[in-house]
Structure formats: C-alpha cells, structure tokens
C-alpha cells in the first residue's frame, strides 16, 4: 500500500498534473454553474436580450469544452501512470527473477511466478488509473465548491460543513458493522466459486461412476447459493449507497429549504445566488460519495500489490563472478555449505574433482543431490566454504568463460519454442553450422527421428517443447552437449520411464562425452556408479562416505545396504 502510493508520487509531473487538472476541473464545475445561472437569470428575470447573453453562452461552451478535455487528460494521465508503474514493476520483477538464481533454479515455484508477473501486475492497474486520480480530485473539488458557496452564501456553506462529515462517518460505521459479516460471506464465496471448476475437472470421474446427471442439480444449487451469498454482501453495499444518498438528499433538501426561505420569506438573497448554491450543492455531495467507490476500487489492487511486494522482497543472492579465463578445470569443494530458507541445505561438502574425472553422486530422494549439482554448476554460491577452480575461488572467473566449459543435462531439459536446429544450436557458442548441428544430433542418436519428420531440423517444437517424448528431449539435450564439447558435464540421470533405445544411447553418449570431459552424474544406475572414479554418498545434505564403488561396498555399511536393498529385489 505504502509502496503503491510511493510509486504514484514518484511520478511527480503526472501527480502534479493531476492536482492542477483537478483544480481546473473544480474551477470548470463552478464556472459552468456560474454561466448557467447567470444566463437563466438574465433571460428569465432581468429580461435581457439574446444578444446580451451571447458572450455568456460562448463562455459556457468554452467551460464545458475545457471540462471534457480535462476529464480526458485526467483519465489519460491515470492510464499513463498505471502503464509506467506496470512497466517499472515488471522490469523490477524480471531483474529479481533473473538475478536471484536460487529460487528460480529450484523447481516447483515457476507457476506462481508466472501469475505474479502477468496477473498481479495487471491488477494493480486500477489503483493508478482510477483510484489515485479520483482521490486527488475528491480532495480538491469539494473544498473549492465549499469555498465558493461560503463566499456566496455563508449559511449554505455552514450546512455543508456540518453535514459533510456524516458521509465519511457513515462509511466508517457501516464498514465496522459489516466487516465481520462480509468476511464470513467471503469465505463462502471462495468455496462456491471453485465448485464449478471442480465439477468440470472431475467430469471424467463423474461419468465413469455414472454421476454426471446428478451433478447438474448440484451445480445449479451451488450457483444459486453462490448468488444468495453474493447478494447478501451486495445488499450491504447497496444499502450503504442508499443511506449515503439519503444523507446527501437530506442535506441538499436542507440547503434548498434554507435558500428558499431566504429568497421568498426574507427576500434577503438574490435569485442568482440561491440558484447558484443549489446547482453546486449536488456536485459537492457527489464528489464526496465518489471517494467511497474509489476506495472500493483501490482495495482491489491491494491483494495483487502484496503478491508483487512479496516477490520483490525476496532476498537476492546473486552469484559473484570475476574476469579470469578458465582452462580445463579441476574443482574442489572446500567445506562448502548451502542453506535455502525452507530448510533445504547442504552441509560441509568436501570433494576434489580432477580434470576428466568420473564422479557419481548418490543418495535418497531429498538428500540434496540436485542442489549439489547446481552448486557445482555455479548456479549459486555456497553460503559458507569455497568452491575452488584450479585452486582459485570460482568467483575469480568470468561467468562466460565458466559456462562455456559447462553442459548440464537435467531430467527435464527445457526446449524453447523454435526449431529443432535452434534448440540444439543453443548449446554451441556462436553460429554453429548446420553440419555441426546434424553431427551432434547424430551422435546423440536422434538424427533418424529428426529426418523422419516432414520439416526435419526445421520442425518447430512448441512452447516447452510439446510434442517430444521425455526420451527425445533427453537426446536433444545430449546433442546440445555434443555440439558444445564442454570440459565439464553435469548430468541428472533419469530414474525410470525411458525406452530401451534411449537408455542405450544415453549410456553410449555419456561414455563418448566422458572421454574428453569431467562428468559429474547424479546417478541412479549401478552401471554408472560402478564406472565412476569416485562416488559421493549423500545423506540429508552431508557426504557420509566417498570413494569408488568397490571401496564403499567394503567400508560403508549404509552404502552397501542401500545397494543391496534397492537392487531390484524388493517384493
């Protein structure tokens, strides 16, 4: 809320304009009333000729034109202000997301972030396009009208001063009284609104159990319940508008009575003054009432703003980089620890990975294997301890140089919208030739499949690479690595679900890639584990044993148990 306001007032020129145009709008309202009254007075009582009032008519026309122009400019400023904030907020969010690698790299949160970036940002629009301009206008216009009325006829002004506070007061009373009730109703609403979706999603299940017809009545019933609950809330809102209208009608009536009496009985004021006051009074109460609806609009943006704020307040932990070049690296983890706020952690990891080493990381689900792989990859820095590359901290090296040496093949490689060739070429440094790409695809065992497609390498693969199976995506990722020929390959081995062909290709390809590179694998297959020079056995974020397979089988009871127990003999 504070932030929303701050963003509004940061746009000084715009807010200043809103103030100025509100003052002008107020002036135009008063001017319009003045011209109108004078013209009527002129022809009605003073019996002026049409020629006499012509200048007044032109004046009125000008005032009306200006009023319309001002209302356009005011609205336009609001829209522009909203656009500026939305642009700015999206940029801030974007920066946050790209600079804050940990949360982005850890899976499972992306969906929520997409909706923050899209919907939540859009929802703060009305705060700027409607609420702020309205608040500014309402804080100025009634005061101007009041001042003019006080000047013209002090008693009517006093009636306004006395009655006006009843409007906000009434807002507060109604607000307090209905808050509890409407919150209780809101819970109901939330439950109802999901019901229809729930039923649609369960339609297959319903049909399988022969319940689809019965559910129709349930939808109807819950929709009608929904209606009744909503109406309860709306009724409160409508009644409060009704009361507000009564207050303002009553007040206007008071003013009319007072002015009328003075005009007729005491003959102490002129017709024009009385008329003028009567024309302005409704405008006065109207702008006060509008503040109420503006508050309502503004409140809608608050929830969205909170979501955006939460996202922006995430602590940033950017990875540090230097400028040094990387030659074929040896990697050392020296007491490296890493902690993520929901308890995800790696503790005190010690390991040395010489060039061309074959390293396997094993451990139960949730033991931190993938996190360790991310740490080695340089997707985030250790919170304690060091990652050394060729004896120097990794942060000494340039980001580009480091990632140029690295490939990462995850269980779910991401395919971007573009052609197959584009998706493989993303692995290569710059401008890989089609021949290189085809060669890489061949090595990854996917060239036959690509050739069988109508458009071959130019086949578009859609958003998130839809249309390719898990095994095929894996092979595209392999092709990326073959094209890149990195000196370090990080590999998250798939557990199940691959076809035999992909299994074989994966094994062959990994062996091929391993000839010239360091390979660090989150390993699930005994085959990979047995071939590794060194195994890191992780448990709850700590290395409980390390060494080659044969050695671990002898030295680590836990490791031995795990291998024997999980070796396909259960049940």
């Amino acid at each position: 809320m504070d932030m929303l306001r701050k963003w509004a007032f940061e746009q000084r020129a715009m807010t200043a304009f809103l103030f100025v145009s509100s003052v002008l709008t107020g002036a135009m309202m008063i001017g319009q009333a003045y011209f109108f009254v004078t013209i009527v007075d002129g022809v009605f009582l003073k019996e002026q000729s049409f020629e006499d009032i012509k200048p007044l008519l032109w004046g009125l026309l000008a005032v009306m034109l200006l009023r319309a122009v001002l209302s356009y400019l005011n609205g336009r400023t609001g829209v522009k202000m909203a656009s500026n904030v939305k642009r700015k907020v999206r940029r801030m969010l974007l920066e946050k997301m790209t600079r804050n690698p940990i949360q982005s790299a850890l899976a499972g949160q992306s969906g929520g972030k997409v909706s923050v970036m899209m919907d939540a940002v859009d929802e703060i629009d009305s705060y700027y396009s409607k609420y702020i301009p309205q608040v500014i206008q309402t804080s100025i216009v009634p005061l101007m009208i009041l001042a003019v009325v006080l000047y013209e006829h002090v008693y009517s002004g006093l009636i306004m001063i006395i009655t006006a506070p009843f409007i906000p007061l009434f807002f507060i009373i109604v607000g307090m009284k209905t808050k509890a009730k409407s919150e209780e109703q809101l819970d109901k609403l939330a439950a109802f609104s999901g019901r229809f979706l729930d039923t649609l999603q369960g339609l297959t299940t319903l049909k399988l159990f022969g319940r689809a017809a019965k559910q129709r009545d349930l939808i109807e019933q819950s929709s009608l319940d929904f209606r009744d609950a909503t109406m309860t809330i709306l009724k409160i809102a409508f009644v409060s508008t009704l009361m507000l209208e009564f207050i303002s009608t009553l007040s206007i009536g008071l003013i009319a009575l007072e002015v009328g009496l003075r005009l007729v009985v005491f003959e102490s004021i002129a017709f024009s003054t009385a008329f003028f006051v009567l024309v302005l009074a409704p405008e006065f109460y109207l702008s006060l009432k509008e503040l109420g609806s503006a508050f309502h609009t503004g409140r809608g943006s608050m929830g969205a703003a909170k979501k955006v704020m939460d996202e922006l307040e995430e602590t940033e932990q950017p990875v540090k980089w230097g400028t040094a070049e990387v030659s074929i690296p040896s990697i050392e983890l020296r007491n490296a620890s890493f902690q993520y706020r929901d308890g995800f952690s790696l503790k005190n990891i010690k390991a040395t990975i010489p060039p061309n080493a074959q390293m396997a990381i094993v451990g139960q689900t949730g033991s931190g294997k993938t996190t360790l792989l991310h740490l080695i990859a340089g997707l985030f820095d250790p919170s304690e301890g060091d990652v050394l590359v060729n004896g120097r901290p990794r942060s000494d090296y340039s980001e580009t140089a480091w990632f140029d040496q690295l490939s990462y093949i995850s269980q779910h490689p991401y395919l971007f919208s573009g052609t197959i060739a584009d998706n493989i070429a993303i692995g290569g440094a710059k401008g890989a030739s089609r021949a290189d790409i085809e060669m890489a695809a061949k090595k990854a065992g996917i060239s036959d499949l690509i050739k069988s497609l109508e458009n071959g390498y130019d086949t578009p693969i859609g958003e998130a690479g839809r249309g390719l199976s898990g095994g095929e995506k894996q092979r595209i990722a392999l092709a990326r690595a073959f094209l890149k020929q990195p000196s370090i390959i990080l590999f998250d081995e798939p557990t199940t679900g691959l076809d035999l062909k992909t299994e074989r290709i994966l094994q062959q390809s990994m062996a091929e890639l391993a000839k010239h590179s360091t390979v660090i694998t989150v390993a699930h297959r005994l085959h990979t584990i047995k071939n590794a020079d060194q195994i890191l056995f992780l448990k709850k974020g700590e290395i409980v044993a390390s060494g080659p397979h044969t050695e671990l089988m002898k030295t680590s009871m836990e490791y031995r148990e795990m291998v024997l127990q999980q070796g396909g003999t259960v049940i």
Partner: protein
Amino acid sequence: MKDVMVVIKLMMAEKRDILYSILFGVLAGLTSVGLFAMSGYMISKSALAPPLYIITIMTATLKMFGVAKSISRYAERYFSHRATFTILSNLRVSFYEKLVPLAPGIFQKYRSGDLLARIVGDVESLQNFFLRVFYPPIVLVIVFLSTIFFTTYYSIYVALTLFAGLILTGFIVPALFALRQGKIDSQVREERGALSTDVTELLYGFRDLKIYQKLDGKEKQLGKSADLYVDGQEREGIHAVFNQSVNALVALMISWFVLALGAYLVTEGELAGLFLAMLVMISLTVFENATPMALFPAHLEESRHAAARLFSIVEGKSEEEGSSDQLSKEKAYSMEMDGVSYTFLGEKRLTLENIQLNIVAGSKTAIVGPSGSGKSTVLQLLLNMYLADQGDIRLDGSPIDSLAQESIWERTNVVLQENHFFFGTIRENLMIAKDGLTDQEMETALLNVRLDSFSLEDPVFEKGENLSGGEKQRMAIARAMLKGAHVWLLDEPTSSIDAVTEKQIYDQLFEAAKDDTLILVSHRLTGLETMDQIIVMEKGSVIESGTFDELMNKKGYFYEMKQIEKSVLL
C-alpha cells in the same frame, strides 16, 4: 452474434427479475430527472415570490422524488444483480449439460490444462452481458422517450434536441468506437499471449538459459514484449477514456444547446422563462443515464468474445451415438483388440499402431513399457473414451460401438492416473462409487487400502489438495473396490505408493478381483510373476507378450527392462 443470441435465450428464463430491473431502472431514471427538473422549477418559481405554502408543497414533493429515486435505484441494483447471478447459474448448468456428452473426448481435443479455467472465466465474464450490455440501453431509451415526451409539452424544439442527443450519445458515438474497440482488443490479447510465453520460458527454462548463456537475450526479449503489452493496454485504456470523454462532451454540448435554444425562445417570448432552468436541468440529468453507454462497446465485445469461445468448445457433435446394447451385469467380460490404430488429434505420429490384444474373461493382464508407449491409451480405448481410428474392439464379443458408453463404465472399476476428488468429505467422495453404500462398507474399503487413519468425515479440498499423491491413489482404489463391478482397468494405480504398502494393497485387490477380468498398466516390473499375461509396449506397438517366465526366458525387451530396473538405485 449467434452465440450472443444463445445467451439471450438463456437469460429470458429470468423474465420477472429482468422486468423488475427495467422497471426500477426506468423509475430511478425518471425520478432523478424529475428531482432536478423540480428543483429547477422550484427555484425559478421562488424568484416570483409565490405564497409560502407553494414552496412548502414543492419542497415536500422534491423530498419525495429524492427518496423515490434512491429507493428505486436500490431496487434496480438489487434485481439486476440477482438476475445476473441467476442467469450465470443457468449458463453454468446449460454449458455443463452441453459439455457432459462430449467428455472425456473434449479434454483430449484441448489438451492444454487451462481450458477448464478458461470456461469458468468466460462464464464469469458473461455476467457483464446482462448488467452492462443488455438492459441499460432499454432503460435508457424508455427514460429518454418519456422525458422527451414530457418536454414536448413545453417546447418541441427542446424535445427534438434531446432526441438528437439520445441518438448521438446512446448509439452513434458508441457504435463508432465499437469498430476500433474490437481491433485494439484482439491486438492486446495477442501481445498478452506473447508475453505469457516469454515469461513461462524464462522461468521454466531458467537453468538451461543460464548455462547456455541465453539469459540476457531472453531477458531483453521479455522486457520488450512486456513493454509492448503495456503499450497495448495503454492504447486500450486511453481509447476507453477518450470514448467516455467524447460521449460526456456530446452530452454537455446538447445541454448547452438546450440552454441556448431555450434562452432564445424565452427572449422571443415563445417559452416562459420560468421553465428555462427546469429544461436545462432535465437535459443535464437525463444524459447522466447515457454516459455509461460509452463503455457499452467494450463490454459488448468482451461478452461476444466470451460467448463465442464458450460455444465453440461445445459446438462439435456429441460422441454418444445412441448405441444401446448393454453388457451383462453379473460376470466378467472378455476384451479384444484387432488391428487397432489411434492418433491423438492434431498429432502426426500414431499413438497406437495395429494393436492386437486378446484378454480372456477372468484373466489378469499387465501392460508395461516406457512412458509414452501408449499403455494408457489402450485402456482409454477399451473404456470407449475415444474411438479408434482403425481396427475393431470387442467387449464380451460385441463390437464396442454397439454398446452404450454408460453400460461399459457401469461394468468396470476404473483407476486412472489422474483421479478427481471433489471438494467435500471423504464420505462424499466414496459415495459416488455406488448407491446405498453403508458407512461400514466405506470404512472397510479405507482399511483395505491402509487409509483407516482417515475418518469418513474428514474434509477433502478442491482436487484433493490436502491428500498426498499416494493417498489419492489409495482413495481411488478404495472407490473402485466399492463399486464392485467385475472388470478392473487400472492405470498405474500405485506409482506413488511405497513398495511395502503396494504389495499389501495388491494382495487385497487381487483377492477382490479373483474371478474378474483385470488389466493393470504398470510402471514397475515387480510383482508381475503371477499375471496370466504381460504385454510389453513400445512406441505404440505391442512388441512382446507372454507370462513373466516366458518373457524372462526369451531374454528380449522385457528382460532388458527388468535388468535396468534391477540396476536402478532409488
């Protein structure tokens, strides 16, 4: 427009509330015009120093108008909103009725998961149709015509001016803007789509983008599409503001013209000066009713779009073809597939190719294979959820297309990969299995799947969000067991359940299914030793079949898969 007609037809079921909305809307409009006309007249009359009682009477009338206006505004709001929500309810029900015969095939046609959310959203957005598109113009016209009729009594010229104003602000100006509105809207929608794709790619592909150093480029691209989208929205917003301002200006101009015309008529002696203020007040007030018409094009466009999208989904012909043959109720049936091929809509690759399958009544069959090999599709075809493109499927010897879909579903216990649980209680979710289930039966079923820690009263959140994957699977198995049919079709029913519990549940399940036909799609290769038949699939074809021992001795595909499974840790 044809879709909008469907909506209007549905709306008409609520005639009474619609009539009330219009009635009170008109009353509110007229009393408000009356209120201001009266005040204009009163002040002018006062100037002529009438007796006090006249002023008193007029003030009282004024109050009455004020109160009547507020109350009818309240009633209008009340009835129009109530009508809106009732109409929404009718829409939901009618849409649901249209959707039911199309499920589940429709979900395959639109594979994207947000289809349903979109349906719900579109129905919701139609609430603006009645509230902002349908009845306000009717009220507007009635109020205007009555007012114009009233003013003819004083000056035919003023009346004509007001009429011209009605045509301009109520119809011509909105119509002019409607043309551009549609274009801008569709542009913005496209820009939004582009942004959404970029955001999704950046977030889901973050790691790959980072490592392949494409993050900066993507960031720039995203920044650009974000700006484009906001630019579009800005155009849209400014267009709406312009639209409103122009309409308001036209209204003001008309009132100005009424004043100028009135003043002229007064000076010419053709109109009593007493009525001038009143006429101008009438004009200023009556156009307040017309200003909301400026937003009419936007709302119309939105409703039209929502209606078109909704009804395009259910437009296709129903898949139920009135086949009426029933499967025998009391016994397990056999299943055969002969040369069956199937392709998912919009995909080139065959999902299933020339499948031969023979499942004897009362036998136990497992289907295994890598993910994406077509295992689940076989089950879905056997359930007649989709129609095979080629080949014959026979259940109990009868061609599947001669059988009523409902009859197949009634005779099978099905556990799918995704089983839906409804908002409510465990009891409610189990009750859908069969009519007349007792608590005791349901509790036994829970015990059978080792969920006896749950009570029947325990709440289930939407989509079973408060249940773990394993709990949902077990609940689905319990539900299938309660149904008590004699054919079981199980699609990876235990993939999230640990091996020990899985074994226990399978023991219960196979005991219950002793004499029944059972097909189990399985991702694990363990526990298949007792199966009568194992079918191995790859890339949409059956590549091996036989008993466990036969397949192991053959040392083919199954054998190799088994070797790999043995060597996979964790």
